[in-house]
């Protein structure tokens, strides 16, 4: 880990470190490159103007009303880099794209979540990238996005969506979101947490390489990183690749970005809970909702040590609640990060779970069809090992930690009985003297779109923006 604080790196795109909470409105433009050279000229112009924000640009001062970031799909990278796109150097799920059949099955994009029902992203290769525009108002966000995208003669805008943040960072079911996040070791924040709350530090601090490429990860190794041909980089913009010495490192200070449009049936959710809860003895709709999410609505942890003040929201590790009497084993928060109870050994459990952390950056959408939900975004150094693992091995695994016939009550895919496996639509709440099971629980969250992106560093963007020229100058690639 380098001594300088990465959180103010001029080379890392701003969205990685910042939620841009003051810029609470966002517009996302998904585009397709039609003319490689023109697009690269546009990108180069954007970079010269400083229109793509880096982490060095701190939380906006009052006079800043807009920030922009950009990321590309594998189709986009291969279009822009042509022969410089080396597929094997990327995470293989990124290279394949989110909607090939085997990924759909791994992600649970089947049944109600089948890409054939999506609003965008279902057509493989249609989307080459996303330009993200964050602003103080929806109008500004959109206007800046359109202004930027309209300047590009080399690309078509395929789809647009808007997002926003609620006060106190509530997601549409009403729960506080963004409470538990991995914190990068060596940053100011990490030092503060380590000093003030060692228990939280133990379950939150990760090596930089877990989330961003170019730095050691939890195993002490530099994570795998996209490579490109040295021939396309005559000016030496990029470093030598850590694995292939004859290639250049396109990944350093970049990260993979997972984008999923997740519609939430908020009415159905609360109606179901009100009908199901008896209303007696703490069996209320709210309590039930909290048992499904795995946190209190205001973000407090379910597992509380009575001796501890103030009440805990993130230093728990489930070790005092193995049976799930406080926080059910199958709840969303517990499935998506089971901390110290993945297996018997707490230490080994944490070693395991800390290799599967993701940095979340969700916003809320409300679309013209009256749908609302999360624009789920997360960053990770490996989509396969992190996001996909959380989604498939934990959230959508019907055999998770001894459970049966159920998946994550929030993000799981309900399935009919098939191939000898039973119907999957239950939810188990451990309690004394024996557990309660909710049957035929509806699925409240449906996938409506998505794609895998690579968020390049500023240097990598500069490299990308000159590959046509470099190639023209050096025909003997």
């Amino acid at each position, binding site marked *: 880990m380098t001594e300088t604080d990465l959180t103010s790196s001029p080379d890392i795109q701003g969205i990685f470190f910042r939620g841009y909470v003051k810029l609470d409105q966002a517009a996302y433009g998904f585009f397709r490159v039609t003319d490689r050279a023109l697009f690269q000229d546009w990108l180069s112009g954007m970079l010269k103007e400083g229109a793509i924000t880096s982490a060095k640009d701190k939380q906006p001062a009052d006079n800043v009303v807009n920030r922009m970031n950009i990321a590309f799909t594998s189709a986009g990278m291969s279009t822009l880099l042509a022969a410089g796109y080396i*597929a*094997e150097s990327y995470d*293989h799920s990124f*290279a*394949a794209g989110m909607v*090939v*059949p*085997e990924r759909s*099955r*791994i992600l649970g994009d089947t049944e109600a979540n089948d890409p054939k029902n999506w609003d965008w992203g279902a057509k493989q290769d249609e989307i080459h990238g996303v330009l993200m525009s964050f602003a103080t108002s929806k109008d500004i966000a959109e206007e800046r996005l359109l202004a930027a995208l309209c300047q590009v003669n080399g690309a078509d805008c395929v789809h647009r969506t808007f997002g926003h943040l609620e006060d106190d960072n509530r997601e549409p079911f009403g729960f506080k979101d963004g409470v538990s996040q991995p914190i990068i070791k060596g940053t100011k924040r990490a030092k503060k947490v380590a000093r003030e709350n060692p228990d939280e530090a133990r379950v939150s601090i990760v090596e930089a390489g877990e989330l961003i490429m170019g730095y050691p990860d939890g*195993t002490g*190794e530099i994570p*795998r990183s996209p490579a490109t041909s040295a021939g396309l980089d005559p000016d030496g913009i990029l470093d030598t690749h850590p694995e292939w010495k004859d290639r250049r490192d396109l990944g350093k200070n970049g990260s993979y970005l997972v984008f999923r449009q997740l519609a939430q049936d908020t009415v159905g959710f609360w109606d179901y809970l009100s009908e199901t809860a008896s209303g007696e003895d703490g069996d209320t709709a709210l309590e039930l909702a909290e048992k499904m999410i795995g946190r209190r609505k205001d973000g407090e942890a379910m597992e509380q040590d009575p001796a501890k003040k103030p009440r805990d929201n993130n230093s728990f590790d489930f070790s005092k609640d193995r*049976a799930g009497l406080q926080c059910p084993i199958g709840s969303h928060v517990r499935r998506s990060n089971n901390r110290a109870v993945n*297996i*018997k*050994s707490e230490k*080994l459990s944490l*070693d*395991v779970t800390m*290799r599967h952390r993701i940095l979340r950056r969700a916003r809320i959408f409300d679309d013209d069809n009256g749908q609302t939900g999360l624009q789920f975004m997360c960053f990770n150094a490996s989509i*396969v*090992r992190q996001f*996909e*693992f959380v989604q*498939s*091995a934990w959230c959508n*695994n*019907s*055999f998770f*930690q*001894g459970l*049966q016939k159920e998946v994550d009550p929030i993000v799981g895919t309900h399935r009919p009985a098939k*191939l*000898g*496996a*039973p119907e999957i639509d239950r939810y188990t709440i451990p309690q*004394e*003297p*024996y*557990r*309660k*099971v909710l*049957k035929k629980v509806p699925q409240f969250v449906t996938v409506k779109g998505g794609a895998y992106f690579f968020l390049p560093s500023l240097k990598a963007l500069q490299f990308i923006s000159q590959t046509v020229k470099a190639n023209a100058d050096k025909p003997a690639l």
Partner: protein
Amino acid sequence: MHNKFTIVTPIQGGQQGKVQALLKPCPYVCAETPDDPFGFARIETLHFASLSTFDDLENGWSLVFEHNIDGSIEDHIDNVLTVAETLDGGAFLLDLYSNSAQFKAHTLDGLRDYMLAHVIKPQAGFISAVGMTRDQIRLDARVYEVVDEELGSGAPPATSDAAAARVLKALDTDPQTKGWDGVADPGTKLPIIPKILSILAALFHGIAFLVLVLVNLVRERTADQDSARPDPDLRRSLEKNEDLISTNHMISVVYVHTDAGRQLAKRAGFGLIRNLVTLIFRNSFLGEINTIHFAHWSYTKDNRRLIFVSNYDGSWRSYLDDFTLKASNGLNLAWAHSIGFPKTWAMLWGGASKGPEFIDYARRSMVPTLVWYHAYPSVSVTNIARNRKLRAALIKSKNGAKDTSWLEIV
């Protein structure tokens, strides 16, 4: 008693495509799938089975038929053939094996001899449900279902005793669980004589292993490691058949070094694994790994290839993650001295602990599973262990025990 074995038969030159095409229509078979040309669901001794083909630089293609069973290998093969005969007079099986080299007598009797001659017993392996027959696993699962249904319907019983009474009554009356308390559980205890023999064998192999590790240290450290990424087409063809249900199958076939020193070291390593598994891992789980039903390692007859087959819960990725984070020493014992394997130290360290390299190695070494059968897809390893405990506790309860703590594990 369980047995696990493979039947590895050479395919006549150029016929592999025909074999693969014959197996293609039924990638996954369970009691409910209509395409079951082998009649797996009718073979009472069968827990898991699979068929795959692999290519060999010297010998060409082979067919691997994996079986994880109750009882003896001979009886099981008889069952396989009897079922084939009642299904279609054995036509499908004979058609399949007519592509095999040296299979001359095209009758079921001839096939029996042919299969028996090509049986390969594993060097080492693991079985989670120690001592349990397929039928006990299914009975325990039905008992759980009835208990689950009873406790989940109607008004909840007022007391634990009332809950127990209701559950016992339901078990006695439900036709699904007829005779539920009559089937004895053989238990998991290793009798004293086999135990002593296993301890001695473990010691013997352990000492031999230490010596052989030293002998091979230079060769171990200078062997080449292959760091290539898996071929995207291969990976896709593997992923295509994964996660059809929450349990999965894998088969890997690797080349091993054939010099006597390393072959002997591997034998000692496997001897050690075999005996340690017998002695220690008798309670459903392989240490911290709680997802393996049946897995085993075996050599092809010419000792050049090492075959690993496994039937495990959860995704392939999480299985491999388990290996690298929780069991890398054991994996190294088995896979070290395989050609191209990530570098190891003393056949114990390094190697499988190097996540990405090891995971790529494992993927590169796999071949697609063409057919896979699972006799109880609705239950995981953890569920089977729980169901076993539950039925045992309920039998006690029926016989008058007052303890109702089993309610907690339902």
